[in-house]
């Protein structure tokens, strides 16, 4: 366990170095968030009765999404070096070390996501909470909700990291990592509610999407925060997060065992 903590710490410090990149990212995300909220506002003004969420809760959802982009979006924490080492066979050097590749990648991924998000979250939150209602970021309705949000956020981080490892391991079996990456990013982005929040999905499709692991990444924590997701529905959602957190790790490890066998047999 200690060695994975070391991987985590090393990676965390590394990611903190890219300050200018983080600043550029913050500016990007701020613009992006503002445009998205203005677009939702245009729909809201057109027909407020059809709006499925409180408008302030939607704006809050968007700001958190932008602030936490590096943590919860699939590409926010993927490491191009991992794909490279899988493609060019350098993975065999990793196999020579006395560590579990799964745990090492997992620790690295958690660290990447946390460090990058930390650098970006604070400025986005600071600016967004100063904006006038209903466009700004609101505080959670009460402390209990705030705590539940943090719990759900940590579970979401776990789920998205576990899914990233599933994607890493799938690329062992394909010839095009860029393709797998594009497909998995667009699929997960859409189904986690990064393009349009899940409450805006048509009924039927929404219920289906809510069962998938992707809904556990952005949809659940961001809606718990504003109180949009509450009561028994919220409890069910958090339990689903726990389920997927375990299931995705299991799937990832099984895939990895198969993949590494291939590497050993084929010699990279």
């Amino acid at each position, binding site marked *: 366990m200690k060695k994975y903590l070391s991987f985590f710490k090393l990676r965390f410090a590394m990611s903190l170095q890219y300050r200018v990149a983080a600043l550029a990212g913050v500016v990007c995300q701020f613009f992006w968030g503002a445009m998205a909220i*203005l677009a939702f506002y245009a729909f809201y003004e057109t027909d407020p009765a*059809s709006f499925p969420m409180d408008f302030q809760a939607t704006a809050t959802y968007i700001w958190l999404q932008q602030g936490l982009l590096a943590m919860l979006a699939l590409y926010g924490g993927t490491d191009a070096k991992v794909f490279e080492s899988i493609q060019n066979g350098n993975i065999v050097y990793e196999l020579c070390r006395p560590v579990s590749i799964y745990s090492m990648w997992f620790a690295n991924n958690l660290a990447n996501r946390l460090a990058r998000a930390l650098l970006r979250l604070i400025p986005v939150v600071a600016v967004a909470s100063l904006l006038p209602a209903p466009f700004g970021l609101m505080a959670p309705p009460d402390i209990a909700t705030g705590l539940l949000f943090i719990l759900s956020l940590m579970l979401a981080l776990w789920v998205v990291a576990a899914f990233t490892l599933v994607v890493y391991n799938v690329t062992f079996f394909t010839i095009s990592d860029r*393709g797998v990456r594009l497909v998995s990013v667009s699929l997960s982005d859409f189904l986690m509610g990064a393009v349009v929040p899940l409450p*805006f999905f*048509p009924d039927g499709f929404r219920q289906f999407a809510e069962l998938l692991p992707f809904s556990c990444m952005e949809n659940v924590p961001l809606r718990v925060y504003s109180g949009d997701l509450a009561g028994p529905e919220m409890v069910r959602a958090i339990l689903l997060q726990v389920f997927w957190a375990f299931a995705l790790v299991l799937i990832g490890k099984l895939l990895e065992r198969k993949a590494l066998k291939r590497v050993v047999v084929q010699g990279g």
Partner: protein
Amino acid sequence: MLKLYGKYFSIHLKSVMQYKASFFITMTGNFLTQFSVFLGLLFMFQRFHRVKDFSFQEVILCYGVLLLGFQTAQMFASGFKVFDSMIANGQFDRILTRPRNEIFQVLASRIDFVRLGGMLQGLVMFVYGIAQAGVDWTALRVLTLCFMVIGGVVVFSSIFLLDGAFAFFTLEGLEFMNVFSYGASEHGKYPLSIYGKGMLTFCTFVVPYALFQYYPLLFLLGRSDNLWFVFLPLVSCWFVVPCWLVWRLGVHKYKSTGS
């Protein structure tokens, strides 16, 4: 020049065909990325039916035109998008030792055929929009539509040129430019007026997206008969001039510092 570009083109095509399976998977991924944006749009309109004064079909036409321009620029001006690595690995030095214009060579050095996937999505929306948006087609409106696509290609290519030019000055923080390329293509799916007056002014006078998107769209849909709107997309093409000047400045700096 055109013949030479054709040769480059065939070399890139041959290179891509060496990795057919990988190419098609990546292209599918590129299509899906655009498709998910379209799906989001569809979901929003199932619920709301209109946004401000624009119907679903009209927004689809608007988005189709924009995406077609953007994906074309992504495909043909992608050399600028990887320009920082061309400086780092010495490819730009090689370009300078060849007796051809350097912008031409950067353009010719990379053609990102994968973008055909996203272009397909744009094309489908474009055709659907033309048929369904209720446009009363006249020769002048067809001309307007062509100008809109051209304006989009030129403005987005200029942004990539500017993005590449910045690589002469700094290697960090270039992500910022994504707002003006990816950000604009994603948020430009709606006519720019829905974002409010301030944003429309910005998109008219600072980065001229509205000149090839919003104003000519009004003419297309018959909401305005201001003939100037037909030619505004051509005005937006002038945006390439300031971007080109920054590029010149960058090349000058590169030649005097070698980095």
